[in-house]
């Protein structure tokens, strides 16, 4: 079984982020594998391992031919990657990204299952996996916490507020994976050394047959007009315990509708 995992390479969240003049996130330095994608990579490796054969292929879109984050996922065990890197993609919106990744997935032969994170840790639009499914005209299942594949069918436990829905779909399908549902492996020493020579198919939008003027800032159909800092967290309410504090705590929790 062959699994494609969509992965995003993002600026290290541990470093203070900076914005470009057009209010987009500065992505000029080294980019790392988005932690939320490490769960999809791990799940794909486990599924292929369980199926007894096949490859995990990564697809990614990033500026400046950046491969640092891809190397991390290759070191974990993915076999190869398709990287779309093109100046025309600067300022791309979620739908552009979905179109580009969908075209990149088209370059991977025999993809049975496409995994993605539910959302990235820098953009948080949370719509790309479903848009990819739309563009490719494939079934889409979201918020997967457990995935099994058998006989051309994918069975998914789909996380809900109350528990989970049991969903099934014929393959190929696009499944978005909730963060934290598997424990991503640490790359091994041999994995890191092997990752250096694993193939990364580097392509431009033209290679994908996409019109450069229809994507990126030119084609996004959106503009970031203004950015304001998130409001500082308000000071909490301090309740002096006069013997009745527990009632106030109950009122407070009741107000939050968590009781």
């Amino acid at each position, binding site marked *: 079984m062959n699994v494609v995992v969509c992965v995003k390479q993002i600026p290290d969240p541990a470093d203070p982020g900076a914005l470009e003049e057009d209010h987009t996130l500065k992505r000029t330095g080294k980019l790392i594998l988005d932690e939320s994608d490490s769960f999809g990579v791990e799940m794909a490796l486990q599924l292929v391992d369980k199926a007894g054969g096949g490859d995990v292929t990564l697809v990614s879109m990033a500026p400046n031919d950046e491969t640092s984050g891809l190397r*991390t996922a290759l*070191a974990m065990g993915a076999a190869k990657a398709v990287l779309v890197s093109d100046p025309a993609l600067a300022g791309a919106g979620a739908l552009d990204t979905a179109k580009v990744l969908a075209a990149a997935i088209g370059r991977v032969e025999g993809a049975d299952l496409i995994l993605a994170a539910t959302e990235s840790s820098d953009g948080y639009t949370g719509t790309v996996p479903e848009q990819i499914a739309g563009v490719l005209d494939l079934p889409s299942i979201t918020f997967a916490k457990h995935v099994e594949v058998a006989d051309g069918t994918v069975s998914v436990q789909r996380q809900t507020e109350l528990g989970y829905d049991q969903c099934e779909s014929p393959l190929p399908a696009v499944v978005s994976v909730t963060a934290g549902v598997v424990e991503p492996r*640490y*790359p*091994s*020493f041999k994995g*890191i*050394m092997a990752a*250096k020579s694993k193939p990364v198919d580097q392509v431009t939008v033209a290679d994908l047959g996409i019109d450069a003027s229809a994507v990126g800032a030119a084609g996004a159909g959106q503009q970031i007009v203004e950015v304001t800092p998130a409001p500082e967290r308000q000071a909490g309410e301090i309740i002096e315990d006069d013997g009745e504090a527990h009632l106030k705590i109950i009122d407070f929790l009741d107000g939050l509708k968590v009781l």
Partner: protein
Amino acid sequence: MAEYVAPLRDMRFVLEHVVGLEELAKLEGFEHADPESVFGVLEEFGRLMSEVWSPTNPVGDAAGSTLVDGVVHTPPGFAEAYARYVEAGWPAVPFDPAYDGGGFPWLVGIVLQEMLNSANMALAMAPLLTQGAIDALVHHGTEEQRERYLKKMVTGEWTGTMNLTEADAGSDVGALRTRAVRQDDGTYRITGQKVFITFGDHDLADNILHLVLARTPDAPPGTKGISCFVVPKFLVGDDGALGERNDVVVLSIEHKMGIKASPTCVLEYGGRSQGAVGYLVGEEHAGMSAMFTMMNNARLGVGVEGLGLAERAYQRAAEFAGERTQGRAPGAAAGQRSPIVEHPDVRRMLLTMRACTEAMRALCYYQASQIDLAARHPDAAARTTAGARAALLTPLVKSWCTDLAETVTSLGIQVHGGMGYITDTGVDQHYRDAKITQIYEGTNGIQAMDLVGRKVPMRGGAVVGDLLADVRSTVEELAGAGDAFGPMHRELAVAVDSVEQATAWLMERGLADPVDALAAATPYQRLLATTVGGWMMARSALAAGRLLAAGTDGDDDLAGLLEAKVITARFFADHLLPEVRGLLPAVTAGGADVMALTAAQLARP
């Protein structure tokens, strides 16, 4: 408290610009260890250390290892942390590919060791001792022994121990009494008791290979009669399968002031049989050479323990100083409380910690690069030169890095003030862990004796002379490097003059009266090591200055690092290197007064 974060930027700077990783990677067999691959490896290893090893460190300090019904149990989380390290193939990195090693330079292995020690020094002792056992078997074992034992130790699936010390044979290893009697089948039966055996038993691995020094019945007295044996916890069959349990029993484990999670065992060999089964490593009565093979790498390893602890103590002190507010620092607005990092005396402590740690890092990595050159350089003369330099530096690395670790971890508590003395903060652990590093693998006093007795006299003093010539050429370079390097030029010149005078005095007086030489040994060791540390800092600063002059291409992060390197080196020159001015008179004072009081006078309060 934040977990340990590997100081990858400084590690990379030292590897690339101070000790020449790129040149090492050109040596035969190291081609795949190009800088980009090395940094990829360090990054991932650092993540494992931060996320998996570092959280186990305080747990280990609180719980310690325990002995229950003759079996050692390591603290919660240790077996899992060790397993992660083994599963990912990390133990193999610096070893020979012939034994499934990764074929990386020893230098890279030393960087990994620094991280292991910063994250959890007590647990890091298991791989450290295994390395010693691997070295002994690589250099002195038979091909059959290597085949049978090495690969599993290189992968970390089995661990190793070093059994030298006995109750009455510590620093004086020649006094040991453990007996080894040859059997008709060529094996030996070992009987006796060994003490202070690190990871002598544990629950991290399936088997333990004990390297044991013992005496055959006809052996001459002293160190010339010592032989080395490998004694497996479980005997290993021809097919590699584990067989019978050997007669090696843990009698007790020690209760220590630090490294509480590292089980320090009293091992009894052959107490319940005709003797534990052992196999001779090397020739009979040639055990000391196997021991020295183990010790030289182990001594660098202990210096690196000091480095790792200092780094961890610095990270915690710097974090705390930025958060804790007390008093009003000079220049702060009236009525405002300042983070203590704004107070000049706290700055002085932090910079002392930082400068010492950076100097230790450069020295340890430099020493490792000399070990690699000595093993791999295509030119025989270059191999000999590097080997002699490494031999000279071994006692300096071991003693100076561990003495500084005591100072730096103590300052780490001091920066925390009263909070640091409360064990809840946990910074006392690093100080308690550091103390042992000055004692084991040859006390720092023994290192000083090794330095003045064996190392300085090498080639009639020419080995130390070559080192000083190298320091002098850096002094000359500093003279033309501009005002920013002025203090480094001034103080390093004084330091190298002081070492020269001290060395000349030592060579002359040491030959005349060994008491003079031995009384001077420790201040001389400190004098030479501080000078070499100042040399390392100056080389770092010069490299940083060259890179700054060449331009950093808008990379503010890099420019900040390079500027900090120059400033930290200047602080070292102004505030720490002047120590040498007081050490020279202490060296040349002679031994008369050191020995003048009688033992009875010393014993009387």
